[in-house]
């Protein structure tokens, strides 16, 4: 860990920091309506060719296994691979800046108009439409899980704990995570197949 760049970065020609920043800025400014991961793939694999498909999937795997948003985790991890810590910072700043500024302006406007019935109506409609979006994304991401009894049991247990019993999230994670990992513990005779379902339609967060 003494070298500045992460493993795998040495084989790549260095990418200029402004190039990293503006590439992620463009992704952050155009990724409307969810599916930031699809925009990331388009920008990093197709257009810039900084990563091949296999590398992109491995970045995505890391980002999904860790807490935090897939989009910002991917920016940090990809930026680090491209240009070390400075690259990670440039990518993170780029992907969050446009949305942050717009959300902040909208937030100030909302604070001044929060009792306006039209404003509330529009946001109520957006939230209702989002419920449909979230449900569709959850089913698409989880379609592989819904085929296995073990997975269905874990999903049902989590929903009951959070939505019905209203247990605090740290407690839910402490109970469910060790049990779930134990259920999928390594088996010498039956190695697990990597599950790459849902990689193209993970939520935008």
């Amino acid at each position, binding site marked *: 860990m003494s070298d500045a760049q992460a493993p795998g970065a040495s084989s790549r020609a260095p990418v200029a920091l402004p190039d990293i920043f503006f590439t992620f800025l463009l992704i*952050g*400014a155009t990724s*409307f*309506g*969810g599916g*930031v991961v699809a925009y990331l793939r388009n920008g990093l694999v197709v257009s810039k060719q900084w990563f091949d498909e296999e590398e992109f999937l491995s970045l995505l*795997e890391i*980002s*999904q*296994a*860790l*807490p*935090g*948003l*897939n989009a*910002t*985790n991917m920016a*940090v*991890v990809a930026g680090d*691979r491209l240009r070390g810590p400075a690259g990670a910072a440039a990518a*993170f700043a780029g992907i*969050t800046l446009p*949305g942050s500024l*717009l*959300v*902040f302006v909208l*937030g100030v406007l909302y*604070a001044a108009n929060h009792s306006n019935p039209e404003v*509330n*109506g*529009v*946001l*109520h*409609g*957006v*939230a209702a*439409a*989002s*419920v*449909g*979006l*979230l449900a*569709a994304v*959850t089913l698409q*991401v989880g379609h592989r899980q819904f085929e296995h009894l073990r997975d269905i049991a874990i*999903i049902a*247990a*989590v*929903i009951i704990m*959070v939505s019905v019993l209203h247990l605090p999230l740290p407690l839910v*994670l402490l109970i*469910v*995570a060790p049990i779930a*990992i*134990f259920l*999928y513990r390594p088996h010498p005779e039956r*190695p697990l197949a990597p*599950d790459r379902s849902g990689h193209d339609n993970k*939520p935008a*967060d």
Partner: protein
Amino acid sequence: MNDTNWTVLGVFSLLSVLAVGGGTAVLPEMKALTVTSHQWLTDDQFRNIYGLGQIAPGPNMLMVIVIGYHVAGLPGAALAFAGFFGPASVLAFAASRVWNRFEGSPWRLSVQRGLAPLAVGLMAAGTIAIARTAITGPATIALAAAVFGILYFTRTNPALLILAGGVAGLFLPH
């Protein structure tokens, strides 16, 4: 920094490291902390601020900026952002550098396979949390069902449907 500022930073830092499975997964806990525990927002305000986050590009959970602003002005906005994105990003940076050392470990796959249904369960719970504030009658049920059907069975840009939801919201009974 006053007490409220510290509380904003603390709440969103906690949510940051709990977000296993992304932003949707942490929505029920965010609602419990900001609406029920600290009473910074009403149910309707939480729903509307979530809607604001959906309108802007980039990660939807940038809505935390608006919650922070609502609670403690400009410093609150900055602290909510730093709290929610800082710890998880630092963790991602550090963990990605050691991740490849576990390349051959069978436990790495066990962790991924075990956490996948946990994340899906949390996303479902997040969907339910938003539904409880946004689904208020037949009109909103129809709106959510229409968006779900179109997205699940066709390849439509979700942004268009979110905008259509906003327009339809103008005609919702209040």
